[in-house]
């Protein structure tokens, strides 16, 4: 490439070196973009290794040429093809090897490293790549090869030079990649483009740059057409796979990715391909005569190896568990999304709250941005001053707001507040429901005064109620209730009694809610989820227009706790 302007020339005895330069640039371009390629990899198995496989395949070729390069392009391209086949990793690597095989055949047929030679090689590559796969799918590297071959032939008629033909092919490759989600549903569902095809497009682009004498292979290239992606800033790219897709692949079984080379005599790739296709999935078999390379996804890799052993000597065996890879890949993506989402944990104000019931404890934790310490306790189990004090000392800030969440615990909390060295404010929440309402206004980054003012306002607005079984006969607030009956308490006044919890809920809520209200029902430990949903459904009918939210509170003693906001 000493004279980049002279690219339309025909045969040169030094074109073997030009091929070596292409290989180097393409390898570097793939190395640069490896993470992106891995992140896009959802087909045929979402295991996030397409970039790595392509890089390793290219390195195998590069290392081979580093050992020896022949000035004669046809000799060098044959070495490239063999190194590619032997070094091919994964599906994408093996299909990539078909490209180099096509190029080698073209040059062996007497073509030069020229526009013509490139177009011819591209055509052969496309044909043998389709044949290497038992069930060719569109929207993959195969499509990219075929459309590149078409485009190269068209370009050749316009202007024969290598630079022109390769430029047109490289542009076509990017354009085909852009359209892959239209051809392959799994890509569309995941919101990505084909990873292997994109890798090939990157290689071609680096080749064009190399021809022009430009610095090649160092730029990060955004996947074409992912209107989401080019418009994202770097670093957020990994979160771009749709979360529904990540969840949907969690349960899939992919088996083992099994790759090996067979050396023998008169090997027939066609029959090996059929055999592998019957044994597993995503079979790719390439090569012919004395050397073939097998790639297959299979539950039992032993079966594939045994079949190979009957044909000749095995080498370059590579087996890995794709179930693990797919899981790692999915959780890696999910974790990347989570990491970005983590708020800067700068806790200015922390919370201590008293709660009982598994569901309530979860709710308090989830609403508290990780700045909440829970003290177990409630009506029948009041915590001690020491319990609350210990929690205050443990809280992740010197400014602590305590939510007692029970009228009988407010005093205890205030005592603990006085005993602590920390700045402690007790917000006199009288129920867990009002404590939750307060906590929703909490922000750990805000100073304690602002927090407590806003939380106080919020908890004072909501109304709390409960439904439980009376443990003795009573006449309270003008309502008579018998032992064993259900009783409804709203704003700490007995307002209803009846023989079913539903009946009591209906009585106590009549006239208390309207379309503006949000009613939250928390089921107790004795009420299962189905009963909770049914209760809410019936209430929704009788209290027309009110919005009802249901939560499993898991509290003891009360069948239902409720809040009206």
């Amino acid at each position, binding site marked *: 490439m000493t004279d980049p302007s002279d690219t339309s020339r025909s045969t040169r005895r030094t074109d073997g070196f030009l091929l070596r330069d292409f290989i180097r640039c393409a390898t570097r371009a793939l190395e640069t973009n490896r993470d992106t390629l891995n992140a896009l990899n959802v087909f045929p198995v979402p295991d996030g290794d397409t970039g790595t496989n392509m890089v390793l395949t290219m390195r195998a070729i590069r290392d081979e040429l580093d050992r020896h390069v022949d000035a004669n392009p046809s000799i060098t391209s044959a070495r490239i093809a063999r190194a590619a086949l032997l070094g091919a990793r994964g599906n994408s690597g093996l299909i990539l090897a078909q490209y180099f095989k096509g190029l080698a055949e073209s040059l062996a047929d007497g073509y030069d490293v020229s526009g013509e030679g490139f177009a011819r090689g591209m055509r052969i590559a496309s044909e043998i790549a389709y044949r290497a796969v038992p069930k060719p799918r569109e929207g993959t590297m195969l499509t990219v090869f075929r459309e590149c071959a078409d485009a190269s032939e068209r370009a050749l008629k316009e202007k024969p030079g290598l630079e022109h033909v390769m430029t047109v092919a490289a542009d076509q490759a990017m354009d085909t990649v852009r359209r892959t989600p*239209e051809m392959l549903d799994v890509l569309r569902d995941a919101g990505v483009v084909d990873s292997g095809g994109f890798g090939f497009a990157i290689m071609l682009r680096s080749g064009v740059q190399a021809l022009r004498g430009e610095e090649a292979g160092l730029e990060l290239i955004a996947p074409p057409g*992912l*209107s*989401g992606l*080019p*418009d*994202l*800033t770097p670093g*957020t790219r990994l*979160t*771009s796979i*749709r*979360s529904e897709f990540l969840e949907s692949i969690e349960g899939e079984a992919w088996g083992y990715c099994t790759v090996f080379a067979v050396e023998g005599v008169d090997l027939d790739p066609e029959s090996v391909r059929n055999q592998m296709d019957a044994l597993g999935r995503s079979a790719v078999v390439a090569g012919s005569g004395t050397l073939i390379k097998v790639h297959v996804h299979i539950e039992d890799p032993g079966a594939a190896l045994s079949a190979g052993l009957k044909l000749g000597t095995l080498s370059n065996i590579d087996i890995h568990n794709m179930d693990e890879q797919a899981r790692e890949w999915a959780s890696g993506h999910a974790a990347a*999304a*989570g990491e*970005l*989402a*983590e*708020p*800067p944990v700068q806790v200015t104000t922390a919370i201590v709250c008293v709660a009982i019931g598994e569901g309530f404890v*979860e*709710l308090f934790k*989830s*609403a508290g*941005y990780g700045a909440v310490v829970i003290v177990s306790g409630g009506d029948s189990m009041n915590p001690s001053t020491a319990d609350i004090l210990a929690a205050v000392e443990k809280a992740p800030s010197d400014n602590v707001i305590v939510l007692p969440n029970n009228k009988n615990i407010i005093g205890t909390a205030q005592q603990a507040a006085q005993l602590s060295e920390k700045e402690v404010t007790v917000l006199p929440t009288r129920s867990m429901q009002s404590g*939750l*309402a307060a906590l*929703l*206004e909490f*922000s750990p980054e805000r100073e304690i005064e602002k927090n407590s003012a806003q939380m106080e306002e919020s908890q004072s607005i909501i109304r709390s109620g409960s439904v439980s079984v009376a443990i003795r006969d009573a006449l309270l607030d003008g309502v008579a209730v018998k032992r064993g009956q259900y009783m409804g308490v709203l704003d700490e006044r007995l307002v209803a009694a009846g023989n079913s919890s539903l009946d009591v809920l209906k009585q106590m809520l009549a006239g208390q809610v309207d379309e*503006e209200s*949000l009613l*939250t029902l928390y089921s107790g430990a004795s009420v299962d989820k189905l009963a909770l949903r049914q209760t809410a459904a019936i209430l929704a009918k009788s209290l027309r227009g009110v*919005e009802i*939210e249901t*939560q499993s509170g898991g509290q003891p003693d009360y069948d239902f706790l409720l809040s009206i*906001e």
Partner: protein
Amino acid sequence: MAIAVVTDSTSDLPGELALQYGISVVPLHVNFGDKTYRDGVDIEPDEFYARLQSGKTFPTTSAPSSGAFIELYQELARSHDGIISLHLSSKVSATYASAAQAAEEVREQGITVEAVDTLQASMALGLVAIGVAKAAAGGASLDEAVDKAKSLSSRATFTGLVETLEYLQKGGRIGKAQALLGSLLRIKPILALVDGEAHGIERARTRSRGIARIKSLVAEAAPLEALCVLHTTDPELAKEIAEDLSQYAPDGKALAARLGPVVGTYLGPGMLGFGMIRAE
């Protein structure tokens, strides 16, 4: 010759205001399936939000090409001394990068463009553009306009109450607002662009309380230099809120505007909020 002011369609600047202040608006793109629309040019908000709610295909958005900016810059350069190009936060979009690249390319042709990353969105950006356009009309130099843009941007806020974080999440722009998802309870999140990224700043249990909170956020920030109430699907309610808040607007009149498809893609139907600039 004065300087020209350019912004992008995520400013949600109403057409008549853009015209009035002579601001050029470059559209981003919204892609629904295989169809691409220019924001605010090829797709009407009513149609857009109806399709968004139908939920069959989730739209994606993309930044304008550098080419689109280059063409506009070349055109404006014929009648202006310099160009200031004000854009959506670079942390959520490549629009600024595209404009900056275009500015770099036309420099060789002797065209001076200052691209500014305002770290803002929607009418917070739109109000910055109006402020800069006023300064330009008053004869400000390009340097002065850039200073003005930076000052206004630093005092600008874009905040909104959304029905759900679903759209932000689907669109991949959830950023630090994700923390609000931690809550198992049903909530109406209030989001703001902080340092150019979406953050959840408050959670309201009901929409009416959320709206009350939105109003008090405006009251707390007063005195203001500019205020615009924003919505996606509630023009009447937005108008009402604007009237309620008019006392905080500098001239006693708060603007109201609708989020265009690009920003609307991420905040979804039912969004109510505001763009404002605090007084200096």
